[in-house]
């Protein structure tokens, strides 16, 4: 099967960002917090993207910022997916009071706007990477819970799940062998989307000053540091904004393609 152009573009850009993040130490031209020039120098041969509000090389900041942003978003997404989907599947398979307790707790969590929730938690807790990741991951797990519970409910009524129950299979087999493989394609598509929300979320937190703390770089933080430049006609704040936007789009292009492919797999929902 040929890869469609949109997926190829998405895959290329996503790979580019991830590789840049992984090999940041090798490819960054300067040190992360090194002041190497004047404030807001324009684009030049030494500084491909110019310099930032205190004279650090913007490309270097972007590369390290990408590393932080992508790391946080990835780990938080994985956390939210494992917790959310396992709890969601458990709720669907167990039913009864287990389902009620989990679902009502999630409703409670979701009734509080997650940004405000996160801001409150982060303002009383020490702001460190693990805490940020934990807060983001668990808040987002509520969304994953809702989706995976709904998907699993559709699957649990299938005769093959009933057949497994009648065989006497345990909950583990039913969740991981009967439900999970059939729930995977909607979940993977959702995973792309949730990853992007994580990028936006951490960027928002950093922009508001409760996310990644200076001198560490992250894309939201870079926007914050350089936002005043906009008034003076300095485009430095737009660079991370464009990075966030292109990453968001390309990850979604890839997720769409994966969804299409897995849906038409053998035994999938037809293609």
């Amino acid at each position, binding site marked *: 099967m040929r890869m469609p152009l949109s997926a190829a573009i998405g895959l290329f850009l996503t790979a580019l960002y991830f590789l840049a993040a992984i090999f940041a130490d090798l490819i960054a031209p300067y040190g992360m917090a090194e002041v190497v020039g004047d404030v807001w120098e324009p684009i030049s041969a030494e500084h491909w993207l110019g310099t930032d509000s205190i004279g650090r090389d913007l490309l270097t900041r972007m590369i390290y910022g990408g590393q932080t942003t992508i790391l946080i978003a990835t780990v938080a997404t994985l956390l939210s997916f494992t917790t959310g989907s396992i709890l969601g599947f458990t709720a669907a398979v167990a039913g009864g009071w287990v389902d009620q307790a989990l679902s009502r707790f999630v409703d409670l969590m979701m009734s509080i706007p997650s940004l405000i929730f996160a801001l409150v938690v982060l303002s009383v807790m020490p702001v460190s990477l693990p805490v940020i990741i934990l807060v983001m991951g668990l808040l987002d797990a509520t969304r994953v819970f809702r989706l995976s519970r709904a998907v699993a409910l559709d699957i649990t009524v299938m005769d093959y799940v009933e057949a497994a129950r009648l065989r006497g299979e345990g909950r583990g087999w039913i969740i991981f062998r009967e439900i999970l493989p059939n729930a995977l394609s909607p979940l993977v598509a959702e995973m792309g989307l949730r990853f992007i929300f994580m990028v936006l979320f951490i960027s928002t937190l950093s922009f508001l000053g409760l996310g990644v703390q200076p001198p560490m770089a992250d894309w939201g933080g870079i926007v914050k540091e350089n936002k005043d430049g906009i008034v003076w006609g300095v485009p430095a704040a737009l660079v991370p904004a464009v990075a966030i936007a292109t990453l968001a789009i390309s990850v979604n292009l890839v997720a769409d393609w994966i969804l299409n492919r897995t849906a038409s797999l053998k035994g999938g929902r037809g*293609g």
Partner: protein
Amino acid sequence: MAEDILRIEGLKVEATIHPPGERPRDVVLVHEATLALAPGRVLGLIGESGAGKSTIGLAALGYGRGGVRLTAGRVVLGGTEIRAADAGVLRDLRGRRVTYVAQSAAAAFNPAKRLMEQVIEATLRHGLSTRPEAEARAVGLFRSLGLPDPEHFGRRFPHQVSGGQLQRAMTAMALCPRPDLVVFDEPTTALDVTTQIDVLAAIKRAIRETGVAALYITHDLAVVAQVADDILVLRHGRMVETGPTGTIITAPTEDYTRALVSVRAIAHPEAPPAEPILTVEGVSARYPGAAADVLSDVTVALAPGQTLAVVGESGSGKSTLARVITGLLPPASGAIRFAGRTLPARLAERTREDLREIQMIYQMADVAMNPRQTVRTIIGRPLEFYFGMKGAARDARVQELLDAIELGQGYADRYPAELSGGQKQRVSIARALAARPKVIICDEVTSALDPLVADGILKLLLDLQAREGVGYLFITHDIATVRAIADAIAVMHRGRVVRQGRKGQVLAPPFDDYTDLLLSSVPEMRTGWLEEVIAHRRMESAGH
């Protein structure tokens, strides 16, 4: 003949399929179909699924379902060639000169609109008559179709009428614009046998009264024999045989037609009574939150190595009985006794051994197997789970079971999507057998299959019973299947067992009213049967 309502000449229908992991390719659904239909005649199109009968039926409306293209030949409807006609011409013809009755009336009606609105919609849209005229005609049709309270029937919503009534309402919808041709696409297939006969009689009478020509599509030769003047037998998109109904069913010339006519000719002598292995004793059950019992005081018994057929219409509680036996629905009262012991009511309390000895086969093999597991996993899992078999020993046993279900080599690594309907059901049987059970509950296992395929499955089941000594609790609505395989029969109606005993006793008179109704409703493979039954019933009700 110029006066034919419908003439199809050398019609070829193609579609593009997208097999997983392969390039899309074109397949021919119908090769060189040719037929002619004179005014007022009824032509039966018969064949198994995939024979192209619905495709031809829809081609008579100039329509191809998603991605289906009419690529060659002529379709002439009332003098107009419509195969390549543009949308405007087709829109003018459809709903005015040719109409369509779908298999699932429940899915074809808009649940948010009253029946009358939908029945007269096409008539009004085409400006064929005014609203009062159309409504008057609809009421007349409701009456001739035998619908209750015809004056006010149209005020109801689709969910307020039964399935059989909805199917008749759909027939009224098709006949309302006074079309020249109606295409009936399996109109009674989804109905219970006792309902089917009423709908069939209503359709037949409506066709006679309105003098409309009809294409009647079905997979059931006995049904089509009641309504059609001529029959066209199709297989794999090719015409097999065509001729007057009487000739086709009494003197078919092709082997395939002969096979269709003689389907369900399995003879299974009744086994002598024996001490039961599974008994359901005075079971009553209801679903949580429901007000009424689904089962009331049901007592049935199954002897080892024999078949107990549980017969009834939908809603009679026969599938609920299976759920009670398997422990999915604990009964409100009564007990399930198996091999001398009382089984715990709830699934969770049963031991692995309890579960192993009673296995289940489902109606829809498609959803009874995990689409993401290979046949090897599907059949191998019970071996691993109950007997701890692993690796080569397990694979050898899987192959043995595949041989037993007559599939042989090369199937172990396939996914369910790569199997045909009959093969899937065979794999389900193998999965049940893998547990070496004493009893298998078969829930309508053949009703989703084509007659010839179903025949093969029944033969296989009987064969395996003789070899493995397994008992079947066979749930079905189809009397022909019961005749073919049962040793004992329990007839269920509204949650009660109304009649039970050995096959010979149950199927011999004197009958109770319900069993009589059930037995006499099964279409027989001869013309004129429908009229006889209807006349007989009318006489009986007049006598009361």
